[in-house]
């Protein structure tokens, strides 16, 4: 079938996944594998004063117990991803007796069987000298540390706010959350002839390769990181998790492959998480709804061991036209494992508060919340005055309102009910996500047998990259879908970008596009012989000459040396320097955008929620969600829809369920399993309608595709909170919104 851009091609990897033949990282068989298990700290902060492994080592089958005593090895220079490295944290467990957070790895046990390793891991006896610790941003001893370089000041927002007739000033809270991908964390390390193979679920195989090369003092070519499929990553599997390094060290010492699969509860502390945030939002408007001041002060949880922040205010500042904008960011260091990227890291928490406040402003104005947003639609970026590469927020709202039936909404609180007596609430919110880009390489090979092979060390998180990247090549080369093969998730392939920041389609896709164009050029040249290639075209599997005579592509290729044409291309965003590109392709973190010297590039969306609230019990159910998004050119409507829908469903979870609770007296996460950490089940999600609007963006990248991967979650929490207000009159300014928040 036609596999070109815009066709809803069915997921290329679907059959392998549903039939169980797709190999995930932990599925790769390696002969003579030994199994690892972790012992983690039971205190939050302090020192290990004694660690006794005698009993653990006595468990039959135990081969090795690594502790800070026995590790005793100097690692190569590597560091935290936010400091330019590839690690999840600056702190490497087992390199000292220090304990910085609860659930920190204090020993790694390796045994002949999984059962023996687990049993022995429990028999590692540790005594700690514990110190006072705080894991919550609400603890009295925590202080806000301003990040002055993140401040945004346009005009005089304070003065404008003071003068304005209608204003909102409210503070909103979001909790810590964990990714909880269904595929658990883990790693298998295999050394052969001094070279290291790592099978670990990874959103960044080349970055992991570069980091492991640095740690083990090896050339990059001696490291291979392989992760063809992911059972969810959501940002948690981008960096090198410390246990991967420990597993590799254990495997080298033992001379055997070592495999670790991290149990669910341990996953809460050996990886990253979405930090808690507190947002104070102040908005002011004239009586007619013209916004005159936008202020957003965000304080977000960070770690004592690593300063880390995902500032939302640089994004919320882009939403509405206002002559006066004042944005402030700060962090609050806590005794936790280092927080990290989690789907829309800045935007999802930041927009809950910001878009709730916009709804509060609409209520204060007595104005329809969509009308308020449209009235304040900015013609250019409100911060820098740059033109948008494309922005279709208003069309998104218009189409979304139509799909949702917004005109049937009566604005008075509690004015809508269902036939069975439930209170009905309708709410909406805006969403955006920056369209940043990374450099990428890609290889495209067209063979005489008709197949087209696309290779790139990019990643398919389960969201469709295998399918979409194939379509980009098929579109240029006119190859039917069934003859396209795509290879991803292996660091031996041409360098691909981190699967983060929603960059894969735009970045890797641009590289594939470029390589495919190069293949086409050679193909046409071959067909032209000594003639002018420009007078030849490619259509329907044939090369058409100036005489309108078509020759099958296979026939042309048969005349080429080797019977195939292969091209590799390096693509970089237009605003990026060559040095930056080379750094990125070598496994560095190289982003360009979303604002460049000429344009601001963001995807936008309008999101709607219907909630039903039981008038007596005050339980909330989300019966309907509508999302309309503008993300540039949609390569595959099927996978894009699915990706956006997944984000919206997560947004419903964010609004009503997800919270990693902090046991404040003991300064640790409390609900560290899936019985305690709730996310939506199928039964919680009613109808979900997703559409995209047509949008042409000739600026953002070679294929005109903007960010799809993360925007779906961004507006949903506020849309649901706003719907709950509409149903009940209760404005809940924190998530998750629980039954007790509505009992009155």
């Amino acid at each position, binding site marked *: 079938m036609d596999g070109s851009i815009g066709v809803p091609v069915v997921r290329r990897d679907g059959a392998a996944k549903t039939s169980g033949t797709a190999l995930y990282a932990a599925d790769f068989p390696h002969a003579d594998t030994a199994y690892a298990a972790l012992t983690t700290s039971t205190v939050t902060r302090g020192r290990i004063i004694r660690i006794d492994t005698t009993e653990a080592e006595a468990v039959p089958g135990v081969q090795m117990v690594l502790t800070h005593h026995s590790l005793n090895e100097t690692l190569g220079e590597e560091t935290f991803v936010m400091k330019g490295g590839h690690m999840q944290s600056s702190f490497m467990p087992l390199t000292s007796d220090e304990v910085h957070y609860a659930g920190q790895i204090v020993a790694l046990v390796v045994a002949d069987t999984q059962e023996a390793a687990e049993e022995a891991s429990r028999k590692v006896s540790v005594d700690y000298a514990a110190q006072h610790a705080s894991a919550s941003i609400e603890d009295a001893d925590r202080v806000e540390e301003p990040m002055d370089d993140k401040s945004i000041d346009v005009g005089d927002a304070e003065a404008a706010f003071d003068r304005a007739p209608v204003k909102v000033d409210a503070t909103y809270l979001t909790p810590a959350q964990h990714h909880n991908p269904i595929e658990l964390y883990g790693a298998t390390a295999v050394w052969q002839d001094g070279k290291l193979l790592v099978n670990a679920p990874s959103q960044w195989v080349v970055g992991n390769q570069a980091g492991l090369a640095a740690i083990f003092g090896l050339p990059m070519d001696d490291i291979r990181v392989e992760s063809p499929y992911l059972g969810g990553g959501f940002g948690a599997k981008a960096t090198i998790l410390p246990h991967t390094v420990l597993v590799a060290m254990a495997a080298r010492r033992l001379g055997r492959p070592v495999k670790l699969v991290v149990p669910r509860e341990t996953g809460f502390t050996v990886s990253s998480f979405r930090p808690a945030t507190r947002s104070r939002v102040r908005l002011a408007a004239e009586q007619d709804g013209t916004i005159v001041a936008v202020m957003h002060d965000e304080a977000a949880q960070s770690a004592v061991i690593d300063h880390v922040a995902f500032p939302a205010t640089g994004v919320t500042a882009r939403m509405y036209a206002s002559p006066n904008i004042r944005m402030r960011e700060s962090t609050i260091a806590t005794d936790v494992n280092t927080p990290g990227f989690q789907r829309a890291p800045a935007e999802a928490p930041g927009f809950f508060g910001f878009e709730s406040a916009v709804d509060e402003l609409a209520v204060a104005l007595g104005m329809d919340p969509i009308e308020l947003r449209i009235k304040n639609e900015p013609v250019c970026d409100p911060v820098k005055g740059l033109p948008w590469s494309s922005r279709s927020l208003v069309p998104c709202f218009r189409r979304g309102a139509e799909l949702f039936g917004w005109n049937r909404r009566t604005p008075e609180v509690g004015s809508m009910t269902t036939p069975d007596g439930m209170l009905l609430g309708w709410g909406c919110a805006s969403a955006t996500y920056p369209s940043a880009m990374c450099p990428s390489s890609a290889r495209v090979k067209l063979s005489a047998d008709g197949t087209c092979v696309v290779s790139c060390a990019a990643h398919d998180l389960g969201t469709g990259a295998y399918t979409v990247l194939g379509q980009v090549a098929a579109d240029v080369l006119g190859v039917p879908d069934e003859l396209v093969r795509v290879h991803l998730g292996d660091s031996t392939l041409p360098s691909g970008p981190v699967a983060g920041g929603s960059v894969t389609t735009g970045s890797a896709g641009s590289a594939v596009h470029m390589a495919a164009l190069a293949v086409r050029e050679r193909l046409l040249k071959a067909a032209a012989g000594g003639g002018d290639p420009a007078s030849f075209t490619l259509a329907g599997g044939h090369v058409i000459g100036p005489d309108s005579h078509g020759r099958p592509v296979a026939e042309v290729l048969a005349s080429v040396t080797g019977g195939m044409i292969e091209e590799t291309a390096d693509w970089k965003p237009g605003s990026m320097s060559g040095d930056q590109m080379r750094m990125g392709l070598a496994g560095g973190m190289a982003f360009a955008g979303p604002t460049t010297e000429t344009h601001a590039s963001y995807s936008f969306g309008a999101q709607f929620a219907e909630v039903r609230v039981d008038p007596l*019990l005050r339980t909330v159910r989300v019966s309907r969600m509508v999302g309309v998004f503008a993300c540039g050119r949609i390569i595959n409507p099927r996978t894009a829809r699915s990706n956006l829908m997944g984000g919206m469903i997560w947004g419903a979870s964010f609004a009503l369920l997800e919270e990693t609770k902090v046991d404040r007296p003991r300064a640790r996460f409390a609900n560290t399993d899936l019985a305690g950490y709730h996310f939506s089940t199928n039964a919680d999600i009613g109808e979900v309608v997703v559409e995209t609007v047509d949008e042409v963006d000739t600026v953002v990248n070679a294929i005109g595709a903007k960010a799809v991967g993360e925007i779906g979650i961004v507006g949903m929490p506020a849309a649901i909170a706003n719907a709950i207000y509409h149903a009940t009159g209760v404005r809940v300014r924190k998530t998750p919104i629980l039954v007790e928040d509505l009992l009155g």
Partner: protein
Amino acid sequence: MQPFTYVRADSLDAALSEASQPGAAIMAGGTTMVDLMRGNLAAPSRLVDIGHLPGLSEIDTTGPVLRFGALARMADVAEDATLLRDYPALSESLRLAASQQLRNAATLGGNILQRTRCQYFRDGISNCNKRVPGSGCSALDGENREMGLLGTSDQCVATYPGDWGAALAAFDTSVELRSVGGSRTVPFAQFHLPYGDDPAHESVVQPGEIVTAITVQAMPAGRKSTYVKVRDRQSYAYAVVSATVALEMDGDTVTSARVSLGGVASKPWRAPEAEAVLTGRTLTEAVALEAGAAAFAAARPLHHNAFKIELGRRAVARAALLASKRT
């Protein structure tokens, strides 16, 4: 988990004999016991699998005494047509519990013996008088939204988590136990132990004893019964609060009432105070709410769970109003 011997019993007598060995524990559907062993909360040296024993999975819901074999699966019992018609509260309590996959595997006997989901008990490291007697209770000053406020003590505030048990408490229920020494029948009200000073012990089941059946005295109020489960999500979540109400009515007047609570107490909790409010009254929303308030008169709220008094009041009211409309 520590090494253990797995024994698959092929008769009840063989199972009883195996169960009488020191360090033995019983596994039926495995949904509770495997979980406890994986969490190092149970470490039997001998695991006696009775899941496939013949003769213990029959149910009879038609006679003057409803009889549920201990090995009957939750999913099967939930769909029993007679139970659905005559005792909807019992069906609903099963259908609203866990997930379909778990209900397919879990047995009724194991269900009433499931242990608390208290995170401080489960985490293996917090102070917990239930896990390590005398070590204290981290839930008292910790995250205690999920904790109980009835039948709790200063030693333990954990809740009994089950839905089926919570509903059974509203009926005249008994549990049949067998051991190599013989058999005995324990009224359900005495089957679970309130926490008091010894929260480590949760039921009267002794080492070597196996639950063989659960019986319920037939009663007309069964038809006007319902199980209202309030939970944070629509499926696969323990109750924040649950209320079971079974009524006999003469017109709009309640002539007899049974009320029990789940998710809020140390054991399946009968609420006679609420029953007293309802009995003899014309059922209105106000009376139903008054009954709900009475059910929580003795509540001992903690920092994060005081809302359950109000939520529980409303859940009882909802259940009473729903039950009264059943025919």
